[in-house]
């Protein structure tokens, strides 16, 4: 798929989701520009009690919305950049004009990371199955071992950042912590899933206890969504 048609498809899907979630929350005014805040695919309270509704609301409607608005502002005078998908932008930072490179790194990263993040939550936890479970067993020594290593890595990120599991076209998995809004997409990698360990992701409910948040987060994962991303990675169609 070309970059342009991929983005058109993304926008069509986003528009459909807007209609589906209007009952849950009012649509918010968006800053003008090519990038838009994807609506949450579930209600703010869908991840209770592990992630509280107020945190979800502020995180999506304020933090993520700010990344989108700032990204739109960054590409305003660069039509060629504005025509690129957000994942293509962050994958080619070296080619971005220096005046807007940091803004695109921070806000483009913030946009793709959070778009992925909403997608994989809203579930009931449990355990992965099928080919994904096999890959986790092969690359981490089991689901429990993955959780332990992932939580330890997330707790070890000093300051704001993310902990990701990356996936290759061959389906190989690995842990990848990143600072701030950096993403493995910036190094040519692909993200299977990841958890936001900025304090804004957990402070209202967990305060300083990041390890408790990391442990509880697995309860809201939607493994159907993660498995679909795994299939897309192997098919070469996984983007954000």
């Amino acid at each position, binding site marked *: 798929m070309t970059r342009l048609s991929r983005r058109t498809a993304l926008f069509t899907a986003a528009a459909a989701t807007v209609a589906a979630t209007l009952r849950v929350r009012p649509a918010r005014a968006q800053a003008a520009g090519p990038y838009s805040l994807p609506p949450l695919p579930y209600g703010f309270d869908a991840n209770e009690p592990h992630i509280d509704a107020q945190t979800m609301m*502020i995180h999506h409607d*304020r*933090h993520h919305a*700010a990344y989108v608005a700032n990204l739109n502002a960054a590409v305003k005078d660069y039509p060629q950049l504005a025509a690129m998908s957000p994942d293509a932008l962050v994958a080619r930072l070296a080619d971005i004009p220096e005046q807007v490179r*940091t803004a695109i790194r*921070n806000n483009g990263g913030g946009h793709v990371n959070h778009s992925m993040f909403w997608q994989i939550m809203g579930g009931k936890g449990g355990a992965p199955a099928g080919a994904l479970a096999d890959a986790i067993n092969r690359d981490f020594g089991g689901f429990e071992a993955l959780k332990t290593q992932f939580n330890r890595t997330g707790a070890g990120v*000093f*300051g*704001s*950042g993310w902990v990701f599991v990356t996936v290759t076209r061959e389906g190989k998995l690995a842990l990848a912590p990143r*600072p*701030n*809004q950096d993403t493995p997409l910036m190094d040519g990698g692909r993200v299977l899933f990841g958890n936001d360990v*900025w*304090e*804004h992701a957990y*402070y*209202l409910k967990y*305060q*300083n206890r990041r390890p408790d948040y990391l442990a509880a987060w697995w309860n809201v994962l939607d493994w159907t969504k993660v498995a679909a991303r795994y299939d897309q990675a192997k098919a070469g169609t996984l983007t954000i």
Partner: protein
Amino acid sequence: MAFELPSLPYSHTALAERGMCQETLELHHGKHHQAYVTALNGFVEKNATLQGKSLEEIVKLAHGDASLAGVFNNAGQHWNHILFWQNMSPTGGGIPGKLEAKIVADFGSVAAFKDAFKAAATTQFGSGWAWLVQGSDGKLKCTKTPNGSNPLATGEGKALLGCDVWEHSYYLDFRNRRPDYVQNWLDKLANYEYALSQLG
């Protein structure tokens, strides 16, 4: 001797009416700062070359050394928070005449100083600090550092004021609104008497 958490120079409720609630101060001092002190002591215990050194020496020694990143983060945050508690006051916000004259001389006006400080604080992406420092040329300037870094490590000058912009500093009181937190900090919390006492 192990590093210790200094006690707060005011009560946990002392800043509540000025925009920093009791719970924020209890968590920030008793949990966050304490965790940096505990982690730093753990590093020192395991590393003979750090033993017997002052906090300042450890910050400078660990700066830029990737193998000592954990030491730097926690030593830096211990140093930063010691300053931070002294940098706030239940009667904060008022700028003594002598400091005001210096601010006007170096920034043009108090408003220009606050704008520069706010710009540093709000453009520090992710966790970090904003500073009012006096450079080696004697002039005041506003700077920013990520995570646990500080002007002592970067050599940018003497820190007169340091404002913590990690989200834990303001999330309970201001949520995502960092600009409002910083404005309030400058107007109602900052201890400019302390800043003046550090002026060279």
